[in-house]
């Protein structure tokens, strides 16, 4: 796709918007439709579009497969870590209420971090899948 100038220009305009929209879906998921899973897929869609238009090798240089795999694991660890933090602070597993002195604020923080973990893992796994099939 090296000679498709229109595609290049449009992709360069659209990709930042896609990534921004992913972050919106991620962080607004507490209050509206959305959340980590959808955000992760949208974010990965931005990366995959970059890979399709500019070549998989450039995407691999930008987001190395090793880093992607690490992020997939890190997201899961963030999720589980929040759960364990609830245990350590005297609640049950995944009890967000004890994370902060104010239970309401704790619930907000907990679900935000959990969804962030989901988002990171989903984005990383989607990108990994793309790498697998792109060869």
């Amino acid at each position, binding site marked *: 796709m090296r000679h498709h100038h229109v595609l290049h220009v449009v992709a360069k305009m659209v990709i930042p918007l896609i990534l921004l929209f992913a972050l919106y879906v991620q962080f607004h998921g507490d209050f509206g439709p959305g959340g980590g899973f959808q955000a992760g897929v949208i974010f990965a869609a931005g990366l995959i579009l970059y890979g399709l238009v500019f070549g998989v090798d450039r995407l691999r240089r930008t987001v190395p497969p090793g880093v992607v*795999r690490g992020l997939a694991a*890190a997201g899961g*660890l963030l999720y*589980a870590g929040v*759960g364990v933090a609830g245990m350590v602070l005297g*609640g*049950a*597993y995944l*009890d967000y209420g004890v994370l902060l002195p104010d239970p309401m604020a704790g619930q907000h923080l907990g679900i935000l971090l959990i969804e962030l973990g989901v988002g990171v893992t989903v984005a990383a796994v989607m990108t990994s899948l793309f790498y697998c099939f792109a060869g």
Partner: protein
Amino acid sequence: MIASHLPALQVVVPLVAAPVCVLLRWSRVAWMVAMAASLFAVGGAWCLLAGVLSAGPTSYFLGSWAAPWGIEYRVDETNAWVMLVVSVISAVSLLFARRSVEREVETDRIHLFYTAWLLCLAGLLGMAVTADAFNVFVFLEISSLSTYVLVSLGTRREALVAALRYLVLGTVGATFFLIGVGLLYQVTGTLNMGDLATRIAQLGPHRTVTAAFGFLAVGIAVKSAVYPLHTWLPNAYAFAPSAVSAFLAGTATKVSLYLLLRFLFTVFGHEFVAGGPVPVLLALTGVAAVVAASVAAVRQDDAKRLLGFSSVAQIGYLVLGVSLLTTEGVAASLIHLFGHALMKTALFVCLGAIVYRIGSARIDDMAGIAKRMPWTCAALVVGGLSLIGVPLTAGFVGKWYLVAAALEAGWWPVAAAMLLASLIAVAYVWKLVESAYFRAPSARVAAARGAPFSMVAAAWGLSGANIWFGIDTSLPIGVANRAAAALLGG
């Protein structure tokens, strides 16, 4: 403090250990992490079982959301027992796995292998501990997906086909399960098992509930390889890496059978099940399994495939025990579940050790191997005797109670089928023994040496347990009787 969190930690520890393995990337460390998580699970399951036996069932509420709104983990005699079996088998298989996996899996993938192993363990323990029907589905998928990966890592190309076939059938099974859970949710508005039981009892005869039961039963039957839905199993066991065959043979189908018990007796209840055609259907599939799968096992040339068919037959025994719908029958199934996990993992570990040395699981290729690997082959014989059900082995205890329960219920043909299948088992175990002990060794076998110490230790740990629990039967029988009484009592 840790004690009160044990129900959750059983799942959380392997689930956390899995991504840690991905990040560490070092195969030896990944093995150590997996082993540590498994040993933790063994200790946890033991403490939970001791707690249940002395103080009764305990509940754990995830996120402190009370049931039935939140997800409840509930530990009683039955699932504490199943968790103990699963975690012990995982730990012993890992002891065997270290050397075997170094040989069979590419070095840069070994840490991912143990990641999949840990995810599978987390899924199996989660299926056992949770009291939420949808949560069961989630863990079912976690364990199944990681199992497909583990199977596909086998050295031969057929492993990919076997894994794909398992994936297709397993997904159909999981979908049936999910449809069943969805129908129950639609009728009752709840997913908590205890709550489901109360509401189903209040509903009385209800067509949607019956449909839900059908979907759940078929879904679970696919997952536990109940005859004739077993076709994925022999090839999956035959072509998976040796360590995976050992791990799965002792755990995956056992946890699915636990689900069958849980849904039959806790969720739907004895009256609901006893009124319909379920006992007869289960008994028919059970009899078909013990006879047909045993005959199929005799005709195999590949030792791992032979053991796969033998597993299908043994699952038939477990189903027969359940189909009686009596306390004795269910207790006998739980005893044999434990015995079968011990003997089948022992046999797969021994075969894995032989494959490690001669690179083949064909029965003809292992001719005369007993001269080269005496300890491994002796463990193989003990496991085989237990599989037949010779007295003073764990297999005898399970079969004895199964036959006794069948006779007590007046099901003579079922008891006869079990005894017939045991005779056929003599034939297929003899095939292995005859080849290993009474044939002239080939050139490949003559060059083989004894198995590494860790493998012999794993094999004899399990074979020794087969003898131990054939003589001192107080633990399995005591737990199984109490578990069965609790399941059928309420």
